[in-house]
């Protein structure tokens, strides 16, 4: 499923990386610890996290993730947004919690990881 379809279905707010919404999403990964995302998230995954700071962009780009969803209405720092735009990394936000976003995404994508 393309990222823009997910953005529409889950009513996510696009905060950065608008030009990269055509990416194919391979699955989801939920973690707030950068070390876990670094070790566990796979290329093309959409990363669900509470963290909205600069290092999230670094980890997501390194792992070639499809994008980041910052949940629970958490703020994203301006430097993170600027860097994400530069890298073409979509940063999406929602007021929904991680459990609910993961639940809905899982239902959309089926039993991929």
């Amino acid at each position, binding site marked *: 499923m393309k990222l823009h379809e997910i953005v529409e279905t889950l009513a996510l707010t696009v905060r950065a990386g608008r030009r990269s919404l055509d990416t194919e999403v391979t*699955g*989801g*990964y*939920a*973690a*707030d*610890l950068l070390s*876990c995302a670094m070790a*566990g998230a796979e290329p093309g995954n959409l990363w*669900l996290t*509470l*963290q909205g700071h600069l290092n999230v962009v670094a980890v997501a780009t390194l792992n070639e993730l499809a994008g980041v969803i910052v949940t*629970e209405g*958490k703020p994203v720092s301006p430097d993170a947004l600027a860097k994400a735009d530069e890298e073409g990394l979509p940063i999406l936000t929602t007021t*929904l*919690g*991680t*459990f*609910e976003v*993961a*639940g*809905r*995404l*899982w*239902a959309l994508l089926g*039993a991929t*990881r």
Partner: protein
Amino acid sequence: MRLREVMQVTRARPILAGLDLDVEVQACFAADLMSDALRYDLEHALLISGLVNPQVMRTAEMADVAAVLMARGKVPTPESVQLAEELGIPLLGTDITMYETCGRLYAAGLPSCAPHSSQE
């Protein structure tokens, strides 16, 4: 949903022996960061986390959660396990990711915890 069904759905095993598997779980909350967990009404909830230190148990204690499920095959520190035992909080572990754990439980019908609408 009872704890025994949660375990089936998420392929979880008990980390502490002697669990009461009939404990009722009414909603879920998933996070590694505990900072904001207490903004939510976690009474009777399942707290899904990958954080191994005792603060998960402390958060669970303060909020009166029903049980804690460690995802991603994370092994809680001995201090965490000891605290869970002292506090009598059921502690489970699963090897599947937090994403998949949430996905399966959501599909099984468990709702998400809501933020405290008011503290009353």
